[in-house]
Structure formats: structure tokens, C-alpha cells
């Protein structure tokens, strides 16, 4: 994130200056990203110091970060979400949301096939009805439903 702030700072310096006395388009992002670099370095410095003194621990839940678990469960859900976004307007809301829910429920640990099918179907249909009929916000029907 510090590197991102540095990149934003460099990018800001390339923005054209204003013709008037007012700071140009790059001034404010330069100011903010400069502050970001300073704060990022403080956080980085403290983390490095804590690592060096072997005092670092997860303050959120008192357990070490279980990155393997995050990747194993969170990774496939993110991929499923990306596929859902990709398919949303192509195959329509009903099919894409049903497929997404089935995958998500399986990934989240639900094993009863009938319940997965029932929850996915009810949720998809319920949300579709809510948006299309109650809120008058039409969701894409996709090529399958014309």
C-alpha cells in the first residue's frame, strides 16, 4: 500500500499544472499521497520492528493468520463471484445467481443437496421478484429467458 501511495504520488506529479494561481489537478493528490507514504513508512517501520523483536501477533482474534484457510475458502468464493459478475448480463440473473449460490453454499460447508437446491432456488427467485416486481428495478433476463 505504501508502494501504491508512492505510485500515486509519482503519477500526480505528471498531471498538468493550472494556468491560474490555484493549485492544479495534481496538487491535492500529491499532498495526500505524500502523507500516505509517510504513514505507510511508519506502519511498515513498526511492523518490521515488531518482527525483529518477535512480538508480532494477530490482534484481531488472538490467533495467527490462517492464510491457507483464507485462500482455500475465500479464493474459490472470489473466483465464483468474478464468474457471477462476468455471466450476470450474459446468461441473466436467475441462472447466474442460482449457479453462484450453489457453488457458494457448497464452499461454505453445506452438504445437503436438497437444501442447497432449495435455498438457491428460493433466494434467486425471491431476489428477482423483489427487484423486478416490488422495487421496479429490472434485473437482466439474459439470453435463456429472452
Amino acid at each position, binding site marked *: 500500500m505504501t508502494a501504491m501511495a508512492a505510485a500515486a504520488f509519482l503519477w500526480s506529479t505528471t498531471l498538468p499544472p*493550472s494556468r491560474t494561481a*490555484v493549485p492544479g489537478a495534481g496538487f*491535492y493528490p500529491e499532498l495526500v499521497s505524500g502523507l500516505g507514504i509517510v504513514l505507510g513508512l511508519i*506502519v511498515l517501520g513498526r511492523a518490521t520492528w515488531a518482527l525483529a523483536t518477535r512480538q508480532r501477533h494477530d490482534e484481531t482474534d488472538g490467533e495467527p493468520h490462517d492464510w491457507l484457510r483464507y485462500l482455500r475458502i475465500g479464493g474459490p468464493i472470489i473466483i465464483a463471484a468474478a464468474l457471477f*459478475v462476468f455471466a*450476470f448480463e450474459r446468461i441473466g440473473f436467475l441462472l447466474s445467481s442460482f449457479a*453462484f449460490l450453489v457453488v457458494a*453454499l457448497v464452499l461454505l460447508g453445506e452438504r445437503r443437496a436438497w437444501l442447497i437446491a432449495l435455498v438457491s432456488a428460493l433466494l434467486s427467485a425471491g431476489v428477482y421478484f423483489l427487484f423486478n416486481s416490488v*422495487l421496479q*428495478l429490472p434485473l437482466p433476463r439474459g439470453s435463456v429467458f429472452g
Partner: protein
Amino acid sequence: MLSNLVAGFAAILNFQTILLMLAGMAGGLLVGALPGLTATMAVAIMVSLTFGLTGTTALAMLLSIYLGAVSGGFVSAILINTPGTPASIATTFDGYPMARKGLAGKALGLAFMASLVGSIIGIVALVLLAPFISRAALRFSAPEYFAIAVFGLAMIIGISGKDLAKGAFSGVVGLLIATVGLDPVTGVARFDLGNVNLLGGFSFVPVVIGLFAISEALYQATQAGRASQVKQSVRSIFPKMSTLWLHKWLILKSGVIGTFIGALPGTGADIASLVSYTEAKRSSRHPELFGKGAEEGVIASETANNAVPGAAMIPLLTLAIPGDAVTAVLLGALRMHNLQPGPLLFRDHIHQVYALYAALLLGVVMLRVVGAVVLPWFARIMNLPRPHLVAAILLFSFVGSYAINNSVFDMGAAVAFGILGFIMLRFDYPVGPMVLALILGPIAEDRMRTALVMSQGSWAIFVTRPISAVFLALSVAALVFMYRQHRNIAKLERDMQRAAEDLDSSPEAGVE
């Protein structure tokens, strides 16, 4: 004022609005009761669903969710020692020990009634104070608004959680994200990556849905199967009125503390409840009972945190400065429904303002009715299967982010910000400061540059105009105050954790 209030009630007393408020209230209470689901998440998702409603109805519903979610947080705080929302952290200190002693029903009843009184105190303050502040704010121009925005940004430190540097850094990232798109003054494209969708910047609601709802759902997903389920049952949540009367001064004091803190931009219900709790303990005749099941602890925390929603609307409506993340989302909702908060709102849309007051007041009455019916059931609902809940949140988040502009790009942005929010949560970076910065950043930049045009490039304009100078001085003072407050609260939490560990090692258990 009275005739405006009557007109306000007339605007919301229709079948559709009342039905949506009831649904919003029940949904808010449920979200508040479920650990991990926050008021901000609920309001962010629901903003997109209100797109087809009138502004008054939509905001009445969103305010009901807000009231319900802040109020419902005490249920899980008392029953399973896990605050449903951060606002109820201090309620766990004594609520859970009461439940362990078999007094869960009493603790819930006290919390419920305290939350109602707290809500009323906050709303009364809003109705009485907002007109004066908005009238004074009519004389403000660019330098003053810049100084107020800086004041709001300085308050980010108050919602930074355990690590101030990380909170500030999160705020800076929010400020940078807010600069994406065409520069409002010169029209130069900034950080657009050559993508036309980014020329208008990121849409606020999809970003907020990603940061609060999707990130939290991802977190809950990775915790699937880990959370222990504690079975609880509660028959009634009606406390004796004599018990409440006994604590009348504590309730009043806590309500005033909650109102004062809630009205400060950048604070929030969690800080209000912790400060109120600390004060209740300091002034108690039996401070040694705090942390071991003291009724005063529950009352102080819940009165103060529920005074915040009404009070937080004061800077939001009068100065367009959100008090915390959830009011930042509400600000987005107001703009979406063509209501621009600020002093002009009170001049040009006074009926809508009073309709909001009416919605808040009616919401408190509904809270009493809906809460009495549904809260005992929520003890059971908390045992719902998490996979179904997480999947539903994800689906609503995706569709909600799409529905704002019918844009798949927005949906993709929500997923991307969900991943960013998840990573931030895992590394203890609070997302609240980022959302606050997203709202205040554009105001600060725009007003700063307008002021510099006024002064022909002289920065002295910010310190030579008295109101601007006062707010800039207040920003510095607030930074110092918040820093000291942060240290005090951290100390209190350490003490309470020690007390809770002592309690856990004791053999007492059971709830009514």
C-alpha cells in the same frame, strides 16, 4: 416547528412507509443481533433497494434500519459475549456476566429500555439544535467548509480502532480513491487507468457495499464451522419500571454523553458507549462491581450508544459532515434521493427534514413494539446456519451494487473493494476511516481550491477568517483529545478483559 413536525408525520404516515419502516426495523434488529453484521453493512445494501422509492419513504426505511441495528447489538453482547455491533462492546462487560448469573432476561430488558430512552434523548437534541446550527452555517463559505471538512477528517482518529497509524493510513487511501476521475476544477483525468468507467470516479454505494458487506461476508465464510454456538433462551424482556427509575440520573447522564459524542463528526456509537461506561464506573458508589454484572454498566453503555443515531444526524444534516461510517452511507443515500445536506437543506427542503425527524420519532415507538415481539426470538435466530446467511449477503451485495446504475462495472468494483476490505480487516486496518475520507475528501479538495481562488492563492485565508480558524484549531485540539481518549479506552479494555478472564475461570453459569 410544531406545524412542520405535524407535516412531517403526515408525510410518513402512509401504509407503504410504515410497512417498510417496520420491515427495516425488524431487519435492523436482526442485523444488529447477529455478530459480524453491522448497521453500515445493512444500510449500504438497502440503499440500493430504495432507488425506486420516494426520498422520504426511502430515508424513513434506512433510518429504521439504523435505529434497529444499533439497538439490536446488545442481544448477542449479553447472550454470547459477542457484540452484535461495535456499539455494544461495552455492553458485553456487564451484560454477559449478568447472563452468566441467570439474569439474561433482566439484562436484555434493561438494555432495551435504556436504548429507547437514549434514542429519544438523541432525537430531541437533533430537533432542538439543528435549526440553530443550520442558520449559522448559512453564513459559511469555502474556507469555513474546508476547515469543517478538515475537522471531520481529523476525527478519523476517533474511529481508527486499536492502531491510530493504520486508521490514518486507511483514511489517506480513502482520500486517494476519492480523487479518481475527472478533476472537478480543471477537468483533467486523474488515476483513470484509461478506463471510461473511472472518469466519473467510483460510485459510492458499490464501494461501501464492497468494503462493509462483501468483506465481512468473506470473513464470515473463512470462519465457517469455527464459531461455537451457544444456545440461549429468553422468555421476556420487560424490566421493572422501578429498576429503571432507580437509575434515572445515570440514564440522563449517559444520554447526554451519547448525544454530545454522537454530534461530533468522526466519533460514533462505540466511543460513546465506552466513554459513558467509563464515566458510570468512575461515578458509581460500587465501581468494584463493574465487569462482574453491574446493571449500571449495561444501562450506561446502551443509553449512550442509542443516543448517537439522532445526534449524529446533527452534523450530517446541518453541515453535510457524517459522524461515522453509517452516517456517511446515509449521506450518500440523501444525495441519491436529491437531498443535499447542509444549511440549504433547512431552507429549501424543510418538510423533508421534518419528515426525517418524524421518521426517527416514529422509529423509536416502533422499536418498542417490534423489539418486544422479535427480540426474544432472535436468541434462537442467532443459531441459523451461517452458510445460508453469508450466501444471501453476498447475493444481495452483488445485486445491490448493480442496481444503483445498472452497471456490471459497479458490481465488479464492489467485489474488488470487498477483497480490499477483507485484506484490510485481516491486517487490522479499519475501513470506517476510508469511507469517511471518501465522503469528506472531495469536499475538502473542492472547498480548498475554491477558497484559494477567492484569496488569489493566499493560504492565509484559512486562518484569518475566524470561523475557519476556530475549526482548524478545534481539529488540532480534537486530535490531541482523541489520542488521549484512545489511550484511556485501551486501558479500560485491558482491565475489562482481565475481569472477564477472572469471571470465566469462576464456576458460575446458566441463564434464565
